[in-house]
């Protein structure tokens, strides 16, 4: 169960060009920035990134957008990042907008082995166009399909060398959700502690889900 922590540069090598990447973070808070910077440094190309938002220029995955690493962004919000908007308008970046709660549940469904989500969100809007509307107990719901990806990159507060993870406050956001939904999971903790230090009840993501740990900041 023990694993050695890897460098952020090594983590970036494990994310091939063209990969689909689930990322944690909300306006950059809870985004694994050392992995993001390593992806920029290695000149990653053609990524499909899936997460809440594209933050601001220079913040969070905004750095991936600016550096031209991203071919497609599946997110709920791009309004705070004019670079995303410019690249989208120029046809250099595809953007698929998904309501935030629907995005969370589609990823959760992907990670939980479910065939989709039935949600009232998006009824009567462009979001529901081309999707099946299913009546359950007298109410209409939009059928939203599950999301999985090649890689998930997580920010965590503490990890142990088994890969068990804890999160803090609003840096939690999508991180525990995406940990189940990717074929390879790379976590970037703020601190790594010996196995046994984190009480079992405090672990939010079991280490069994985590394939790689990025070493602590130096």
């Amino acid at each position, binding site marked *: 169960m023990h694993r050695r922590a890897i460098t952020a540069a090594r983590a970036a090598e494990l994310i091939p060009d063209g990969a689909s990447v689930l990322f944690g973070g909300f306006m950059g808070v809870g985004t694994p920035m050392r992995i993001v910077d390593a992806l920029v440094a290695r000149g990653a190309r053609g990524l499909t990134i899936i997460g809440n938002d594209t933050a601001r220029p220079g913040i969070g995955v905004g750095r991936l957008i600016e550096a031209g690493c991203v071919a497609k962004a599946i997110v709920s919000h791009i309004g705070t990042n004019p670079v995303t908007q410019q690249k989208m308008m120029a046809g250099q970046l595809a953007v698929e907008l998904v309501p935030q709660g629907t995005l969370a549940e589609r990823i959760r469904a992907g990670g939980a082995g479910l065939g989709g989500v039935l949600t009232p969100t998006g009824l009567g*809007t462009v979001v529901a166009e081309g999707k099946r509307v299913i009546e359950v107990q007298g109410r209409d719901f939009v059928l939203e399909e599950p999301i999985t990806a090649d890689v998930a990159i997580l920010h965590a507060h503490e990890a142990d060398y088994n890969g068990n993870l804890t999160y803090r406050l609003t840096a939690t956001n999508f991180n525990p959700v995406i940990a189940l939904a990717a074929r390879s999971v790379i976590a970037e903790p703020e601190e790594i502690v010996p196995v046994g230090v984190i009480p079992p009840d405090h672990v939010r993501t079991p280490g069994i889900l985590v394939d790689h740990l990025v070493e602590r900041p130096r």
Partner: protein
Amino acid sequence: MDAKEIIARRVALELRDRSLVNLGIGLPTLVARHVPPEINVAFQSENGIIGFGAPPPEGMEDPNLTDAGGGYISALPGAVSFDSAFSFALIRGGHLDMTVLGGLQVDARGRLANWMVPGKLVPGMGGAMDLVAGARRVVVAMQHAARGESKIVPELTLPPTSARPVTLVVTDLAVLAPTADGLVLRERAPGISVAQVLAATAAPLIVEGEVPEMQLAA
């Protein structure tokens, strides 16, 4: 008193004791400054916290404790944090008593548009579609007109946020309540006549008897 303050102070009177409330970014955030002292409200920020407070003093910020706009906040005693799937389960599952959202347009049926202007501005819906679909009460807080044009329109010309009508619309001129018959003029702003409201509104309004002047929270 400027338009935004009139709106915020009127919306504050919609707050109910022991309720869970989500405030959108921008104008709705101002409502938190006018919570009546006898009322206990828990504010949720959809990035994953209930019970947040004002920004901390400079030098005491926590990079893992932010609001949905990415700004620093504080956590009040008793605050709780959670992931994005749980946050939207609260919102969509009927556990959120009220949301206050900004708006671009509201139409005679009470439908809200607030997430994009085709060809011009595509911020994305973020959590707005889930909030309108799921909150028990949806209050729109917006200026009555933008650039001289009424934002209360007969039929939306912008993409709707939801098919579900909102509960109440509070502007700097009036309080409007969507009903099955159309928008009812419930209240007028201090010093504003019914005729002035009607003249400033593109949608037809239903006027029943005497229309009282708005009360405003301190």
